[in-house]
């Protein structure tokens, strides 16, 4: 046993370790998912649908748009058509598998764009304050005061349904909410001493916003992202249901539910299977968000 001189920072053999070791913080987000069973389950569901979408050509037993006349007599699930076939005799399983693609492309893509816009607006409003903040906040409030679904319907109905238009609609509908969240977070953080330290070091505003502030907002933003993904999947489903989704014959979960509603009493599987697909994906995102929230609060 050696005896450290006074002035030595640490004992040669620490009696205890630091609560968090360096490794612990490194991949904090993944770690946090790992610590919560809820989050793990949610992530599993999401990954399942991602894999399904990715390998759709391999997994789907049939062409999703091919009509199979031999199922004419019995469209209910069978050995050839596991999930049965729809009113136009197309294989349901293949359509569900292919239908995962547009949702999982449109929802994240449009949300990422919304976040770029929302984060920019929110940070600028909070950081600069004054009239910029007042104007932006009013605009955001105005946009948030519309019922979301009405906003979607009006937007899509006026420009016509297409993948691109859905993306634009999602951006317009989601970014005000994100901007408000980011504004709140930034407002809290901008009075931090490390921001003042950056200012007196002569850092530019862009540096302060992007390097000093943004990284500290990633936790709540990621939770928000997951919840918002759920909502967006719902919205895309609803648009499809209202006939404002992807134009036919593209397999679209929301559209499939709508097609099935007329036959709901006779052939319930046509509506219920895509509905279940939608809700399982949403559940995945919600569980992930819940789990992350839990670990944030516990930490």
């Amino acid at each position, binding site marked *: 046993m050696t005896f450290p001189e006074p002035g030595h920072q640490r004992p040669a053999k620490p009696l205890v370790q630091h*609560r968090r070791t360096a490794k612990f913080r490194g991949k904090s987000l993944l770690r946090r998912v790992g610590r919560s069973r809820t989050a793990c389950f949610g992530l599993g569901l999401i990954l399942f649908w991602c894999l399904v979408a990715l390998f759709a050509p391999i997994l789907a037993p049939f062409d999703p748009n091919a009509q199979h006349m031999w199922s004419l007599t019995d469209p209910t699930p069978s050995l050839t058509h596991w999930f049965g076939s729809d009113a136009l005799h197309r294989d349901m399983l293949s359509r569900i598998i292919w239908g995962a693609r547009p949702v999982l492309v449109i929802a994240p893509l449009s949300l990422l764009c919304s976040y770029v816009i929302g984060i920019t607006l929110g940070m600028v409003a909070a950081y600069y304050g004054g009239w910029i903040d007042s104007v932006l906040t009013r605009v955001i409030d105005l946009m948030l005061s519309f019922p979301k679904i009405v906003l979607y319907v009006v937007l899509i109905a006026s420009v016509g349904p297409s993948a691109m238009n859905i993306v634009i609609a999602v951006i317009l509908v989601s970014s005000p909410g994100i901007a408000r969240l980011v504004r709140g977070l930034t407002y809290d953080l901008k009075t931090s001493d490390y921001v003042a330290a950056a200012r007196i070091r002569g850092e530019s505003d862009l540096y302060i916003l992007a390097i000093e502030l943004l990284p500290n907002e990633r936790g709540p933003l990621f939770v928000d992202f997951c919840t918002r993904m759920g909502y967006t999947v719902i919205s895309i489903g609803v648009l499809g249901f209202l006939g404002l989704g992807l134009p036919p014959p593209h397999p679209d979960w929301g559209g499939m539910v709508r097609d099935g509603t007329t036959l709901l009493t006779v052939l319930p599987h046509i509506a219920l299977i895509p509905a279940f697909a939608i809700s399982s994906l949403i559940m995945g995102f919600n569980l992930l968000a819940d789990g992350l929230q839990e670990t944030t609060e516990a930490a």
Partner: protein
Amino acid sequence: MNMPAPNILSIESLDVRYRAHDGDIVAVAGVSLNLKRGECYGLVGESGCGKSTIALAIMQYLGNRGRLAGGTIVFEGQSLTNLTPKALRAIRGSRIAMIYQDATGALNPTLTVRQQLGEVLKVHSANDRETRRQRVLAMLDAVGLPDPKATAARFPHQLSGGQKQRVVIAMAFLAAPDLLILDEPTTALDVTVEAEIIDLLRQMRTEHGTTMLFVSHNLGLIRRVSDRVGVMYAGRIVEEGPTDQIIDFPRHPYTQGLLSCVPRINAGRRVYGLRSIPGQVQRLRALPKRCSFMERCSFARPGVCDGLSPELTSSGPAGTLVRCHRWSEIEVDHSLPPPGDETATESYTPVLQLKGVSKTFYLRPLFAFRRQETQILANRYVDLELGRGEVLGLVGESGCGKSTLGHVVMGLERPSSGQIILLGKDVSDVPIGQRTAEQIRNIQMVFQNPDRTLNPSHTVGFILGRAVRKLGKSRTHAARKAEIAELMDRVRLPEETLHMTAGQLSGGQRQRVAVARAFAGSPALVIADEPTSALDTSVKTAILELLLSARAASDTALIFISHDLGVVRYIADRVAVMYLGQIVEIGTVDQVFAPPYHPYTEVLLSTLPLVDSMLEQRRLRMQGELQSLSAHGAGCPFAGRCPRRIGEVCDTVPPEQIAAGPNHVIRCHIPLAELRDVPPVFRSAQYVPDEKDDRW
């Protein structure tokens, strides 16, 4: 007393553990202590030593993660450890009450003061409404709240911090408890308010004869209130005995270490140095097998101290106990440690000059029909000059505009009027974004809150790298790396810290990084805004030493903003005392700490909790609460609370500056001759042996 008073509370080998996600942590390891009826027992130690855990264990409030792993707590012959919830409720509040640090959290924000206090009586004694009302008002009066009737009708958010703590004290005493546990009851308060609360507690104790357990990290406070003291380290009591004995003749190296961290009031850093205890309190995973202080102890000897854990043994006739293998061999060192290296600056070159700097904030309601503005006068006509290498202490209560002045000088805020001259250039109208690289490099800041000073997303290496890139001299990557290494060395941080983020560092380590960041470009001026007020005793001293050595290395001038006069006495060459945005007195430390005083300085000095028994302190308190910066009239800002108010003139005419000596300025209406006649606040105790003077 001849007969030993019976114990009201006895704790026998108490063992408390907290569950963490990676195993148990031992918070209290075999503590035994007895509280005699009517005494005040002080528990002192750094944070993480288990002081508060003992308090919570007595109340059986350990929470979900805490658990009593062994030992007994007996209160008035009744064991508290195995009571039913109902029996426990009967004891909590009515027989044992607790006062916490955070008064805001202890009061229900939706109830008025009367309702909350009435509730206590309703639960613990069955009085009728009118009697309850009377007793509440009487108690509010007893705790010194002005206008009890009006206060009783208020909600907690309408009261100041000191008033809230008074209400909490009233609440505790209403139930007439036998034992009162106080967990750092004044830590969140201003020095002047702290002194008043302590006075109140002492008075309530004599009136009610309540036994008290006083938990604090402040040895000066402990000396002021408690009869006996227990010094805790790493979950154990390492020394125990009568307060005066322990503080004047500490036996345990830890107690000695704590005491050598406390600045003396009669000399500054040029006379002696403070000694910090190396290292930090460790979290115990299991009961220690050997002396747990050994790693930090400068007296530790291999072969002696790494044996079995030492037992508490009697160390003197006065009933002192000490837990150390070598206590009898250790000399009680009363001499002050030598001062640190001090390079005297030969020539005086001004770094910063402030000429009549004022800062006014306007609060404007958003939708006002008429332009109603509230003016907040954060700074009024501040004149200052600071030379190279000089240390200026800026003291005053919170909310007096000290930090605003710092921000104005930094360029984070623009002054409303006046001139700021930095290194010969007028920068008063140049906000930080427009200053030259040279100006930015030359003025830096160290902040108060170690939790918010470092960006939690960045590693120490990144933070210092950025500071060196923006402020340092190096232009190449390798040179920058060398510069970072040198900075780390200067603030005595091990190299592996470079890869850690703020969350993995202790408060003291974070503050070290903050100091390194500020001194990265060898600035001409550093403003330190209460850099040590959130830190533990020994860490505080280490940071002070660090600031001083960093300052000496680059001959930097330092503005040290603090509410702690003791620290300022130690670190500063000159002191400026601020009250409501105005500098009321400025001079060298020796001038400010001796008569003539500005009345406010006098009050501040007399509220300072002292550790030194050789000094006697005159008691002087002011009236009322700190006014807000918005509402004071044309006269002296201190007029409303001044204990030496002379009359109308104080309220109506702004006081002139009087030159009380070379570079010593006081802003007061009282003639200088009269101020000179004021007796000093501190006197050596031997000059007034037994004299009971009203003023003392």
